[in-house]
């Protein structure tokens, strides 16, 4: 009797609890690592698609994506920079105080008193430079390899938004130290935001609609750069723009998957894949035969290549993740080394009575600053606005379906690229040399109406010549891709030369100097 009783004995609640408690580490591990260590292909695949953070990757990655000369890792490097900036930025927020009285002092504390503060600040500053450069070069790569083409037009537009937000983040961050550089660069930036007033003044309608004034007040919360501006910039820099960036980054990555993965040429030879990782299934064509499809719904339009099986893929875990981690560590290492070599600048505290001379914007805006002296509206609003709009529309104006994923797939692209580099360099250098030696309309006709200078100045001249050149190429070649190649190359060369010139050869009063060491001391 006692025997059967024992057999049927139901464990008490306490006993169950104790057993569960004993197995706690194991159950916890099972729930977290839901599929054993990723030692088999199956478990590795499972690790990828059942993890929120990893599942933005596909389970297998095409070997062509690892080709170093294809993407050059620039998109991943941009993302890595952003992650590093977010981490260091959050740390800086612990000590930074966004008020007129404390902003400058708190940065000084971070730089000189807080343990590790200088390193964190330097990494954040260098990170900002590297992210802007990385995003810019990534855009160049996507353009040059023709990867904006169908079906990736939308992702190109998303990319342009990311580009604009990246620049916005950098511009708003520049004010926060509240030193002379910050104050005067932002004053110039705000004045550029207000510059449509040039046009409305010339037309005599500022009283009725003052677009420039509205833009400036929206940005500064006042007519001057003061505490309101600091609070607005702080909010934009630390909350609003990062949220927008993260949101659109999510869309960007999602679109890469939805557009069928990265672009790649239709024929991929063995030589193209030299140096890329390989695994035992790489030769297998993955595999539409033994995949089962359920019919969910019928939609119009093309989707990922359901019919075509894909060859030459490798497991994302570990190949892709190693590649990404390598880039992350490389980017971080570069930032740390630079941070030990060179400190983030901190000038005297902002002084509205004494302008910084020259007040140079961060380098990526210097090209525009070179155009702004003639007309703040043309150089600071109209021309960059046109450039961004033009870039954004590229995939909709060039709808050729040539090969994507290759740099210069035919000799036409290369020859247009080369001739455009020569043409645009000559145009820009000639304009710069001319204006440095002879000045511009205002020097010759002091009484000339500003509206004429707004319309006819080095910036508009260069832009017009660039457009003329590209239309000529478009007409002669009959190819929208070559037209796009011409205008994009013009933009690229213009950006590089103007930026270099303003960085190296402009001194106090925006006068020309061969080297900064020749600047007069004042």
């Amino acid at each position: 009797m006692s025997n059967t009783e024992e057999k049927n004995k139901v464990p008490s609640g306490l006993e169950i609890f104790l057993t569960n408690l004993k197995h706690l580490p194991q159950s916890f591990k099972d729930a977290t690592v839901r599929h054993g260590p990723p030692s088999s292909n199956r478990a590795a695949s499972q690790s990828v698609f059942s993890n929120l953070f990893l599942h933005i990757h596909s389970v297998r990655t095409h070997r062509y994506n690892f080709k170093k000369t294809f993407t050059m890792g620039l998109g991943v490097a941009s993302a890595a920079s952003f992650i590093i900036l977010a981490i260091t930025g959050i740390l800086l927020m612990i000590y930074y105080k966004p008020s007129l009285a404390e902003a400058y002092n708190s940065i000084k504390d971070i730089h000189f008193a807080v343990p590790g503060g200088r390193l964190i600040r330097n990494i954040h500053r260098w990170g900002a430079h590297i992210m802007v450069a990385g995003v810019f070069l990534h855009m160049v790569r996507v353009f040059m390899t023709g990867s904006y083409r169908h079906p990736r037009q939308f992702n190109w537009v998303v990319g342009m938004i990311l580009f604009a937000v990246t620049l916005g983040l950098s511009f708003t961050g520049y004010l926060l130290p509240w030193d002379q550089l910050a104050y005067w660069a932002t004053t110039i930036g705000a004045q550029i935001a207000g510059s449509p007033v040039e046009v409305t003044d010339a037309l005599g309608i500022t009283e009725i609609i003052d677009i420039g004034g509205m833009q400036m007040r929206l940005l500064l919360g006042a007519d001057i750069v003061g505490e309101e501006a600091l609070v607005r910039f702080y909010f934009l820099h630390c909350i609003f723009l990062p949220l927008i960036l993260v949101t659109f980054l999510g869309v960007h990555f999602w679109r890469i998957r939805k557009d069928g993965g990265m672009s790649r040429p239709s024929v991929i030879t063995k030589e193209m894949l030299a140096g890329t990782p390989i695994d035992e299934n790489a030769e297998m064509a993955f595999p539409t035969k033994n995949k089962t499809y359920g019919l969910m719904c019928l939609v119009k339009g093309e989707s990922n290549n359901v019919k075509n099986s894909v060859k030459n893929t490798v497991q994302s875990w570990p190949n892709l993740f190693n590649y990404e981690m390598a880039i992350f560590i490389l980017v971080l290492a570069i930032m740390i080394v630079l941070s030990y070599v060179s400190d983030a600048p901190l000038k005297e505290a902002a002084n509205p009575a004494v302008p910084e001379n020259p007040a140079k914007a961060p380098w990526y805006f210097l090209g525009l600053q070179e155009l702004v002296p003639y007309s703040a509206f043309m150089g600071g609003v109209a021309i960059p606005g046109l450039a961004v709009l033009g870039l954004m529309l590229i995939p909709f104006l060039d709808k050729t379906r040539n090969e994507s994923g290759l740099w210069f797939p035919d000799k036409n692209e290369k020859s247009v690229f080369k001739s455009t580099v020569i043409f645009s360099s000559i145009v820009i250098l000639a304009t710069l040399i001319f204006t440095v030696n002879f000045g511009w309309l205002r020097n010759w006709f002091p009484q000339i109406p500003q509206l004429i200078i707004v319309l006819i100045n080095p910036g508009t001249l260069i832009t017009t010549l660039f457009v003329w050149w590209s239309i000529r190429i478009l007409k002669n070649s009959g190819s929208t891709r070559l037209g796009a190649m011409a205008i994009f190359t013009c933009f690229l060369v213009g950006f590089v030369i103007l930026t270099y010139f303003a960085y190296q050869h402009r001194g106090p009063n925006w006068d020309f100097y061969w080297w900064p060491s020749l600047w007069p001391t004042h």
Partner: protein
Amino acid sequence: MDEKKDSRRDFITKFAPATFWGSLAVWGGSLLKFTMPTLLPQESKKIKLGMPSDFPNGTTKIFEKERVVLFSDNDGLFAISTTCTHLGCVVKWT
């Protein structure tokens, strides 16, 4: 009869989302308006610098903090802002 019923339903099914998006647009617009400062928190642009008798013919006085230059000559008394209208820098008065 049936037709009437259907078109009424049609109307409502179209009208409901339209109200949603319409009110959202109005609300969003008012939120945008919120960010536009109406009280400009800055010093008044009318500044007291002294009495006209403080500036007899031939004086020039620079008020650095106020960013104003006052000078008087045979043509009268002039006040000029030293803030450049181009990019907002301070013009040196000589």
